[in-house]
């Protein structure tokens, strides 16, 4: 199969996870990035009762996961990461939150670039990694959207 073809659809799903464009799996008009930007630091830090995590925790986790994707597309060793730190309840100021969102927004191009131009061989592991990027993003976008809904009502 042409790489352009199967990658194009993956890239659309990545875009959709951030700003809703793509038409792959979300309702039209769902712009998660814009909604993240609209939250205050306090709202983003609200812990969803029972779930034990906030929207900020989810975003931090997605940033950490990018470090795992790096060796999948560029090769090299997997980093030794402190996954638990992402889930610690740490209140963020508005500035800290906006900086976090800006960093998260930048991961979109990083992920797309990896899918388009991997250093590793374009084999089954690579195809699996590209689809994993989409599935993992979608899983946490689902939780982020729950978190946004709760934070705006709280």
């Amino acid at each position: 199969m042409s790489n352009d073809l199967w990658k194009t659809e993956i890239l659309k799903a990545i875009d959709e996870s951030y700003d809703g464009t793509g038409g792959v799996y979300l309702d039209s008009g769902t712009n998660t990035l814009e909604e993240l930007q609209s939250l205050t630091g306090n709202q983003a830090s609200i812990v969803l009762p029972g779930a034990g995590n906030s929207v900020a925790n989810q975003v931090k986790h997605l940033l950490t996961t990018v470090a795992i994707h790096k060796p999948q597309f560029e090769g090299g060793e997997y980093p030794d990461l402190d996954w638990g730190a992402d889930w610690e309840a740490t209140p963020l100021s508005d500035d800290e939150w906006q900086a976090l969102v800006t960093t998260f927004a930048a991961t979109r191009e990083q992920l797309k670039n990896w899918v388009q131009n991997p250093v590793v061989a374009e084999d089954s592991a690579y195809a699996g990694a590209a689809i994993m990027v989409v599935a993992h993003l979608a899983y946490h976008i689902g939780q982020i959207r729950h978190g946004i809904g709760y934070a705006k009502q709280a």
Partner: protein
Amino acid sequence: MTASVPVSEIRSAIKLALGEAFDTVIGMYLDKGETLRESLDDLTAEQASVPIHPGSNSIASQVNHMNFYFDVMKNYLVGQEPERPDWSLAWKVIEVDEDQWSDLKQGLRDRQTELYGLIDAVPDEVFADPNFLAGSYGIVAHTAFHLGQIRHARAAQGL
């Protein structure tokens, strides 16, 4: 670097991603114990009917929505342009009794089987069609999205 990835590799990756969401974690993006089967099978109808927060949907709603979505996408994948779906129906179910809840879960399992059969059966040239590819990725992403919400909804109930 090769010039292309065989359809078989894409087909396999999609099935693995779906399998992870439904019932078989291989470490693509979930931790053990987080599949749909493990997230739904031990829930009572009462637990499945609790909105995650006031005015929001329930786990039963999520499963009903997933079943509705699979039915729409199945037609799409086999090349039948679906009539414009009434997506409001996909969110109609909020509260369920035990029989309804059992039916919803069985419906999801049936659709899983059907979906696997469809992915296995389509010839390579169909799989390489942009619509089929987009539909397949859409199913992977949509399933993961709602599994994430179901996991959140469970946790919100302390489960």
